[in-house]
């Protein structure tokens, strides 16, 4: 038995420990949002997050995730099914065509934004280089990542500004 958590839910699975996480997710847990593309970590369609880091589930034996937290595309939305800023941006920029690679693209991009709120073009190149899109939507993916980053950081900035304003008000009040 191997136990790990998927999208916040604990799982206990009786499985050959060398079976790749991809097939455990798809066949045993019914989480088919994560896709099979190449089977050798060449295309990124199977990308999920392992403790927040993007990994290729097609070459990750399920034994390697014991005791860890796996996030799949099904777990990318926030509380009450609010879209992740990247999902918003993906729709706004009309990114997907066939859509098959997009779960992997989004999971790689989400890991990037979690690490770097304002990624540079080089950061995007590095983080996304493992994800092939045969429909060739790289320009839209890049634009969407930047726009999600801008929205997220605007939100953070806005919050920070609000906090500052509140602090100032409080200060003024206390001085007054």
């Amino acid at each position, binding site marked *: 038995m191997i136990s790990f958590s998927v999208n916040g839910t604990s799982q206990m699975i009786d499985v050959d420990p060398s079976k790749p996480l991809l097939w455990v997710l798809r066949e045993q847990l019914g989480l088919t949002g994560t896709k099979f593309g190449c089977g050798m970590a060449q295309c990124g369609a199977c990308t999920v997050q392992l403790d927040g880091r993007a990994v290729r589930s097609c070459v990750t034996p399920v034994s390697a995730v014991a005791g860890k937290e796996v996030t799949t595309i099904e777990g990318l939305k926030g509380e009450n099914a609010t879209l992740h800023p990247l999902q918003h941006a993906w*729709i706004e920029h009309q*990114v997907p065509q066939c859509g098959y690679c997009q779960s992997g693209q989004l999971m790689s991009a989400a890991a990037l934004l979690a690490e770097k709120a304002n990624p540079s073009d080089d950061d995007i190149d590095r983080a996304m280089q493992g994800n092939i899109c045969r429909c060739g939507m790289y320009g839209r993916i890049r634009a969407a990542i930047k726009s999600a980053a801008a929205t997220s950081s605007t939100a953070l900035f806005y919050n920070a500004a609000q906090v500052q304003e509140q602090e100032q008000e409080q200060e003024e009040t206390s001085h007054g």
Partner: protein
Amino acid sequence: MGKWTRRTILGAGVVAGGGLIVGVAVRPGNIASEIGSEIAGDNETLVHVYVKIDADNVVTVLVPHSEMGQGAQTALTQMLADELDADWSQVRFEEAPARKEYAMYAAGRGYLFKNVDFADAVVPSIDGMMMKVADALHMQVTGGSMSVRVTGQYCMRVAGAATREMLVKAAANEWNVPEGEITTADSQLYHQASKRTARYADFAVAAAAITPSYTPKLKSADEFKIMGRSVARQDIPAKTDGTALFAMDVQLPGMVYATVRRAPVFGGRIERLDDKAARAMSGVIDVVKLPAASEQGMVGNFSTGESVAVVADSYWTAQRALRSVNISWRADDNGGVSSEAIFEQFSNDIDAGTERATDTVEGDTESAFATADQVLQADYRVPYLAHTCMEPLNATAHVSDDGAELWVGCQNPLGFRHTVAGALGIDAERVSVSNHFMGGGFGRKAIADAAIQAALLSRTVKRPVQLIWSREEDVRQDFYRPAVLSRFKAALDKDGNVQAWENTYVDKHEPAEAPLIPYAVAARNIGHVKSPTHVPFGAWRSVDHSQHGFFTESFIDEVAVAAGKDPYAFRAALLKDKPRHLAVLRKAADAAAWNTPLPEGRGRGVSLQESFGSIVAQVVEVTVVNGETSVDRVVAVVDAGFAISPDGIAAQLESGIIYGLTAALYGEISIRDGAVEQSNFHDYEAVRMAEAPEIETHIINSGADIGGAGEPGTPGIAPALANAVYDATGVRVRSLPLKRFDLNYRITESEATS
């Protein structure tokens, strides 16, 4: 069994409640009455074969094409909805089921096209697709960039306008007013004089009893409200949260998994098989030999060798078990064939003019060459290419005594139904097909080979089987864009005017006009010779244009250079009688600032290609450093007559360009010992994020007949790239892929010899 359940799978246009099912028929009456019970859900009325209206006034369009990423389902829905005067916020779509009523033949020659004047540009394609095929009744093909320009123009718009007329007629009867006094907008009917209004839903049932017109009045472009707008694609939200269903996502009770290996040499057979180790593995259910398969017809025409499949409790188990099966293959005559031998054969056949047939002969090429000041000759070649859709081939089948059910993502659902029925030896009426989103198609998913394998496996193990091909199988058992050799000769006079153009190439498929050039050259002789190989042919995004775009647009560049002229100005001067081509070319040159000089090591190249009724010009900028080429920027201009969805056509251009760029930079399937050498994305590479250029798209709405969108972006990128490399380095790339060129070496060499 046989009940169409796609609606619930797709998730679009699902309507709650219980209620009416009404229909209409075509000849006589309204065919929708025959199929309404299958297609209309609760509370919905099938008013026309392509339109349902429900009690809440939601219009659902039945789109007879499948979705492989091209977004045509949304564009087709726009076309019907606009002619219907529907409220776009209340319009949905569903993919039409695999039924003969939605076959291209039925839709086309059968009735809707009757008395309709076709645009000249699409007639050969329609005839080619429909009339050359004995089984045209079984075709429901998505390909040839036909969806918008044929189905959209001649089916969806006609259906929308006809349905509007039926609703008006029904309201006029009920209100007892002349039809001409009734107006429509936003899914509502109005009669101003009596101040009466009604929703379309109120008259859906009555309208469904009326026979639709074949020739309703269509809108002119200035009346379009929904066509011409970039609307959001309805399939996109589901493609951002993992809920979009592809065929591989189907999970059935009791379903088992299979994977397969076909004879590596095309057409090969199994000589000996030792499956003891595989059968001993835990989770293995069966090891099955699958027979060779073949199917005739223009689309879905294929033949394959024998295969071995393992059925198991998991794809992973099946894959490991298959690896342990010891198979001796028999290759017969093809076991020694190599790419080198194939190109040698091509060259010999061109030399010999083997069964040469001409595409066009104009003027007197012989005397032009005899009197030429300069004769330019060049051989161009391209290798075989695989499609490598992101989603490897797969199919799920459940075959029982009751018949067969198939879950696939394919470009020809009706064709699959008939092909699989044929393979099982049962009546097509006993096969049902649930079609899904395709994770890429590009031509590969018009061929039913994997679906046949899945059906045979399910029949053998008597359970639902999901067959998944490994990526290696997907690369090695494709139906390939052919390898092609094309030989050119051009005659120039002393002023650098091109007097003659001669071209002979191997391997002719569709479209027939692919090797033709738009330029004013008085004498031309373009033709092809037969030089068959054992490597199976398949339609690959833009088909013959994918090679001829590279050939002709590179060679015309060579001719321009030989004439001592600027490649853009040279082309423009030969397009005086082609105002659409010239406008597209000019726009691209202007947008790319063609005349501004580039620094050392950088280069700019141009191409112009008409394909599938659309004209595309591209200007590519490259940087070549130490022999490494990076593509910096692509400016692309398209004239598709009228862009139904401007963002949709822009996305298709971007997509077609990257697809073609992957082929131009890296794409090569090579043959050794009769089999494909490549196997996966490490040796059959794809353009990735860091290599993807910035792409700038421009759209010209010239008002000409509507052209295609899915393919026209692809042919022009390779020649524009090769021409840019020439501009940067002085090296002429006459063979793809570019990665095979040692630009560094060539530069050194040319410097040393200059």
